[in-house]
C-alpha cells in the first residue's frame, strides 16, 4: 500500500485540529531553528554585536533640527559655498563656472586639450617669456575670464547671412518659375501682325513680358 493511497476523507474535527497543531508546531520549530543558525553564524562571523550602541553615544550623534545649523549641529555660511577654489591654479571661481573652468584649466576636454597642446608648443618655442606673461596668455585663452568673447560669438551666430544657401535656393526656385510663366505667355500670345503693342518689361528684375492690347475700331 502506497503513502498516497491513504485517504484524508475519514478525518474528523478532532484529528484535523491535532494535525493542524502538529504542523504549526513544526513550522514554529523551523523558525526557531532558523533564527538559532542565523545568530550562531553572525556570532562566528563577528557581525552580531555590530548594532550594539549605548545611549550616550546615540545622543552625541542625534540629528540636529535647529535654524542656522546643519544636521550635525555645525554653523554653516550660506555664501561660503557659492565660490570654489580651483585646485590647479588656486583661483576663487563662482560655483556655477567652476566645472567649465576646471575643464579648461586641467586640459581634459576636446577643445581645452587642444588649447593645452598649443600652450605647450608656444611654451617650447618662446622660452624667454616670463611666467607672468604666460599667465596673461592663459587668461586670454580661458573663456571663463572673458565674458565679452562669448557674447560676441553669440551675436555672430544670431546675425543672418544674406548669402545663406537657403536664400539662394529660394531665388533659384523663383527664377525658374518666372521663366516658365514667360514661356507660357509667349505660347498663348496673339500674332504679331495684329493691332497689338507689346510694352517693355515693367519693374526691376521682372522676367514677365506684359502685353497691352488696344482694341482699334475699323473704319470701312
Amino acid at each position, binding site marked *: 500500500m502506497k503513502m498516497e493511497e491513504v485517504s484524508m476523507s475519514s478525518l474528523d474535527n478532532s484529528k484535523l485540529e491535532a494535525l*493542524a497543531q502538529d504542523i504549526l508546531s513544526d513550522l514554529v520549530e523551523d*523558525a526557531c531553528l532558523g533564527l538559532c*543558525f*542565523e545568530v550562531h553564524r553572525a556570532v562566528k562571523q563577528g557581525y*552580531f554585536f555590530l548594532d550594539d550602541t549605548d545611549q550616550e553615544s546615540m545622543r552625541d550623534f542625534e540629528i540636529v533640527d535647529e535654524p542656522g545649523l546643519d544636521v550635525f549641529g555645525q554653523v554653516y555660511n550660506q555664501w561660503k559655498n557659492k565660490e570654489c577654489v580651483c585646485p590647479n591654479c588656486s583661483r576663487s571661481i563662482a560655483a556655477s563656472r567652476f566645472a567649465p573652468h576646471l575643464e579648461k584649466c586641467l586640459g581634459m576636454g576636446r577643445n581645452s586639450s587642444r588649447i593645452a597642446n598649443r600652450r605647450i608648443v608656444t611654451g617650447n618655442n618662446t622660452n624667454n617669456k616670463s611666467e607672468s606673461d604666460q599667465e596673461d596668455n592663459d587668461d586670454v585663452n580661458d573663456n571663463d575670464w572673458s565674458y565679452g568673447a562669448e557674447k560676441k560669438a553669440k551675436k555672430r551666430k544670431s546675425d543672418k547671412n544674406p548669402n545663406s544657401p537657403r536664400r539662394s535656393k529660394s531665388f533659384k526656385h523663383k527664377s525658374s518659375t518666372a521663366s516658365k510663366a514667360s514661356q507660357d505667355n509667349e505660347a498663348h500670345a496673339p500674332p504679331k501682325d495684329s493691332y497689338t503693342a507689346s510694352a517693355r518689361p515693367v519693374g526691376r528684375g521682372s522676367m514677365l513680358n506684359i502685353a497691352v492690347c488696344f482694341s482699334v475700331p475699323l473704319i470701312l
Partner: protein
Amino acid sequence: MFPRFTFNITHITGALTPWCRFTVFAVFFPSDLNTMNKEARLKATINQKLTETGERERLKELLRAKLTECGWKDQMKAQCKEVIKEKGLEHVTVEDLVVEITPKGRALVPDSVKKELLQRIRAFLTQHAS
C-alpha cells in the same frame, strides 16, 4: 534457518531551513507497511502534500514575516545575546542556542499569528480531504 526480512528504504529529502539541508533514510522493518500506524501514515501523506504543493514554504514565509512584524525576532535576538554573554563568545555552540532559545521561542509566538496560521492549515487540510 534465520527468518528472511526485506528492507523497504524510502528516501525523503526535505529542507529544515535554508541553512540546513538534510537527507533522511527511513528504514521500515519489515517491509509490510500495514503494520505501521494509520495516523503516522496520514501525517506522512499530509506532509508530502504540503511539500509537493509548495504550501509548506508559503506558510514558512508567512510565519517569518508575521514574527518579524510583531517583534518576535528582536525579542529572540535579545535572548540570544544573553545566552552568548553567559556562555562566552568563543564557546557558544548551535546546540546551546537551540536548547535555550527554542522553548522561549515557542512560548513567545503571539496568539494572533498562531490563529492565522492554523486557519491556513485547516483550509489546506479541508481542501485536500476530498
